[in-house]
């Protein structure tokens, strides 16, 4: 067995992320201690760079990792972490969506009604998140993260789900399309079903995303793929587009003064640069391995958030 730089790089990243999740909070009491102010944005940039490397190839987006991990490791109040989390999710989606739209792997037609529902429910979630006591939000965040872990652990995906007949809403709105599958070297036509159930699910997803600043890629993809029957590639691309289209929760945080540039900007830039490197990581480590790692990290982060929330009651 030989070790190449590539074979060593993946375990190093995995150890780094595990360390991020496992180590005690650097400043759990909220004070910055003896660490100079400039070290925090530098550390935040480094942490988000590592999260970006892992999150995007694992197919979860950055937002869902950002809030529990940065909220637990850094001295920032959860209000500001959630605001930054929404900007991280929005910025990542804005970067990816134009290309996905151009090649038909994201569907504007499918994303529009879902984004409207997500946009409205995100506002309700964001307002509730900024109004509720921090301990309540922390506890609910912990429970939601643990729910996401169960979903990620159990949910299977179907590359091309069978949709025998589109429902009335899907027919009326023509929620269908075609994309060119390079692996199959042919166009793939698709449509969706169970649209009313999908609509209700996306309202719930929007509430959680707005309340906790999580982004929603973790839920959008299974809802689009397994519930509504969109092909996996279209589900992943349209999930990103829905995140890019529904910036209403970010506006709530902006207007409330909850965007501190020294937190938001290093997070956004670190996550985006990390995502660029993360795509290359897929060459040396499988998506399934990364997904297992991310699930484990989320499990630890979820338990920490829950314990922290319950401990402050």
């Amino acid at each position, binding site marked *: 067995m030989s070790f190449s730089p590539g074979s060593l790089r993946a375990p190093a990243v995995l150890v780094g992320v595990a360390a991020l999740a496992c180590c005690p909070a650097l400043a759990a009491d909220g004070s910055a201690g003896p660490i100079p102010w400039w070290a925090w944005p530098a550390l935040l940039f480094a942490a988000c760079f590592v999260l970006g490397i892992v999150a995007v190839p694992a197919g979860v987006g950055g937002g869902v990792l950002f809030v529990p991990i940065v909220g637990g490791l850094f001295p920032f109040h959860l209000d500001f972490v959630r605001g930054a989390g929404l900007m991280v999710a929005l*910025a990542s989606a804005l970067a990816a969506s134009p290309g996905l739209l151009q090649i038909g792997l994201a569907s504007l037609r499918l994303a529009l009604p879902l984004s409207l529902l997500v946009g409205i429910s995100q506002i309700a979630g964001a307002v509730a998140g900024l109004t509720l006591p921090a301990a309540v939000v922390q506890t609910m965040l912990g429970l939601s993260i643990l729910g996401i872990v169960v979903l990620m652990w159990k949910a299977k995906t179907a590359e091309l789900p069978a949709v025998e007949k589109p429902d009335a809403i899907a027919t009326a709105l023509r929620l269908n399309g075609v994309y060119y599958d390079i692996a199959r070297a042919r166009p793939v036509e698709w449509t969706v079903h169970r649209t009313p159930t999908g609509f209700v699910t996306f309202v719930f997803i929007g509430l959680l995303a707005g309340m906790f600043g999580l982004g929603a890629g973790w839920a959008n993809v299974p809802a689009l793929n397994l519930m509504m029957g969109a092909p996996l590639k279209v589900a992943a691309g349209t999930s990103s587009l829905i995140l890019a289209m529904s910036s*209403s929760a970010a506006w709530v945080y902006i207007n409330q003064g909850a965007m501190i540039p020294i937190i938001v900007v290093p997070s956004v830039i670190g996550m985006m640069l990390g995502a660029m490197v993360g795509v290359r990581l897929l060459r040396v480590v499988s998506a399934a391995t990364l997904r297992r790692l991310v699930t484990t990290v989320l499990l630890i982060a979820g338990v920490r958030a829950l314990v922290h929330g319950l401990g402050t009651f």
Partner: protein
Amino acid sequence: MTSGPGMIASPEQRRYAHVLGIGASIGFALLVLSFLVYVLGLRKPLLEPDQLPLYWALPLAQYLRATHAPTGWSWIASIGKGDVLNLVGIVVLAGTPAAACLAVLPAFARRGQFALFAIALLLLVVLVASSANLFGSAH
């Protein structure tokens, strides 16, 4: 119907992608530039960076009372301050979905896709209303 990946997207989808791409590029550029201005101290900030650790652990309401940080669109009055300047890039990124939505409305109307036109219009209203601070919580 199609022979390759380049022929898949509808004209309104391509238009939406185009506007989204332009907005994202401008937003990222502004974000990086304004942050450099801030951390290099080229413009005096409302709140000095070395003072931030005293406040960033506070809940939002206490933070606002302690720092008098701007809320709503009042930040525009302080746009020359190094820290507030960063909000320009953030706002451009957050406003890009609304601009893209507005850009595809005429295309939906021209093609007689009135259901999608109505949904896009409603989404635009929601985004504009949220940017106008109509859904703020009590701080």
